[in-house]
């Protein structure tokens, strides 16, 4: 398999045809997409792509050409992919949910707590709907001890912020929402 060479990100007001435009340009330049993740947050389209580009000089012009193709308002970045730089927490995956009245600094408080207990966010989304805040996160934790401490810390933070907070094992949600029962954590 070809190694990844670049990371491309695009941020632009959402409209029809953005992915088609991006893919069309990448195809024309013979750049291979190895992995991507895309979402829309409050009307803004965002995408991150891991690319394999055999010809470095082709990649150099990619960001500018893509901004032009996507028209005004699009922000495109292209960086070199550096392998082996991530410091990933190995361990079990948990789902953190919190909901309640929105107040400043809540996400910051939870992020500090998770970081202090050695946890790593692998996915995080928050949504403020009027006065109500919802937080949904996937967290990798290094050990059972970290889980116990984190639960205590989160419970305290929940009391202080007035949010209902829960931290539960990822496999609970797999078991209750997927038809096939997975016996093992990596049985995906």
């Amino acid at each position, binding site marked *: 398999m070809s190694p990844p060479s670049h990371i491309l990100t695009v941020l632009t007001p959402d409209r029809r045809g953005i992915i088609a435009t991006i893919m069309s340009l990448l195809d024309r330049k013979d750049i291979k997409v190895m992995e991507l993740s895309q979402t829309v947050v409050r009307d803004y389209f965002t995408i991150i792509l891991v690319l394999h580009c055999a010809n470095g000089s082709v990649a150099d012009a990619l960001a500018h050409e893509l901004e032009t193709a996507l028209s005004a308002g699009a922000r495109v970045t292209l960086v070199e992919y550096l392998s082996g730089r991530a410091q990933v927490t190995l361990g*079990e995956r948990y*789902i953190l*949910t919190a*909901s309640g009245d929105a107040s400043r600094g809540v996400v910051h408080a939870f992020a500090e707590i998770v970081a202090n207990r050695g946890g790593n966010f692998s996915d995080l*989304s928050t949504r403020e709907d009027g006065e109500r805040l919802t937080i*949904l996160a996937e967290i990798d934790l290094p050990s*059972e001890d970290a*889980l*116990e401490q984190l*639960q205590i810390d989160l419970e305290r933070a929940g009391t202080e912020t007035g949010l*209902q907070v*829960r*931290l*539960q*094992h990822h*496999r*609970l*949600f*797999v*078991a*209750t*929402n*997927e038809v096939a*029962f997975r*016996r093992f954590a990596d049985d995906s």
Partner: protein
Amino acid sequence: MIRSDDIFETIRMFQDEKLDVRTVTLGLNLDDCSSPVLAQLLDKIQAKIVGTAGNLVRATREVERTFGIPVTNKRIAVSPIARVAAGHGPDALVKVAERLDTSAAEVDVDLIGGFSATVEKGMTPTEAALFTCLPEALSVTGRVCSALSVASSRAGINMDAVLRAGQTIRDTADADRANDGFVCAKLVVFANIPEDNPFMAGAAHGVGEADAVINIGVSGPGVVHRALQRLIERAGSGTNAAENRLTLADIAEEIKVTAFRITRVGELIGRELAQKLGLSFGIVDLSLAPTPQIGDSIGEILETMGIAKIGESDRFVHFGGRIPAPLHSLRN
């Protein structure tokens, strides 16, 4: 990828609807403990219970912590003692009950079931002795439960056993007169007794089961009740009442999905625990029995679906609309 509304749906079952695993029950075969010498029989029973269930409570607590799911009761169900202790009389059987009780205390389980007899076609001398000793055996022990199987669809009803069971209930209540006969809550009379029932007082480890197996009991009515209430509220909140009118198929779908989720919680806990203990995973029993919690009743599900009134709730009007405390205990 799990959808966020599915995640919050699962969270709601624990947070708002108080879903828990009602019981983890270790089914344990004691047939290999049989001995004509009482002392040997007692020692073998204790050794097998402590040897197999010694880590049951600790491992259950670990699984509770990992998954954040409370397990209300930890229990053991053994082979019917009238079979294990074949050849022994009533006095010896009381000793067996006492040893079951101390063994259960040693491994810290809430209850131990299986001080039982299966007599739907006839009664052996030891089974007759078990009936005789039940009032004393249940009164002198705290954790021991008994199930008498007096009928089955295949064999029919053993009317002699029914008569003896009736007399035994009265005698057991008399023996516990000081506590209003509460000890009878540990005695169940069955038709068609399940071989792998995890719920007390009727749990026993039946024929055809593995040597040691983890069975799970989950309680469903409360969660199903609230899921149906939400469905009805959602349908009622729309602008077009005719379009949002619920059909029986909508209700069936909601019950199906909710029952799936509840059962899967039990399966997750059961499989994880069985793996930790090196035992087989058996079954999940989704109980429809009511608990003392308000709303945790199949009757209220039927009322939510549109049936005007279920059961004999008028009787409770005399108690100010509340179920008196002794009945709470019997219904748990």
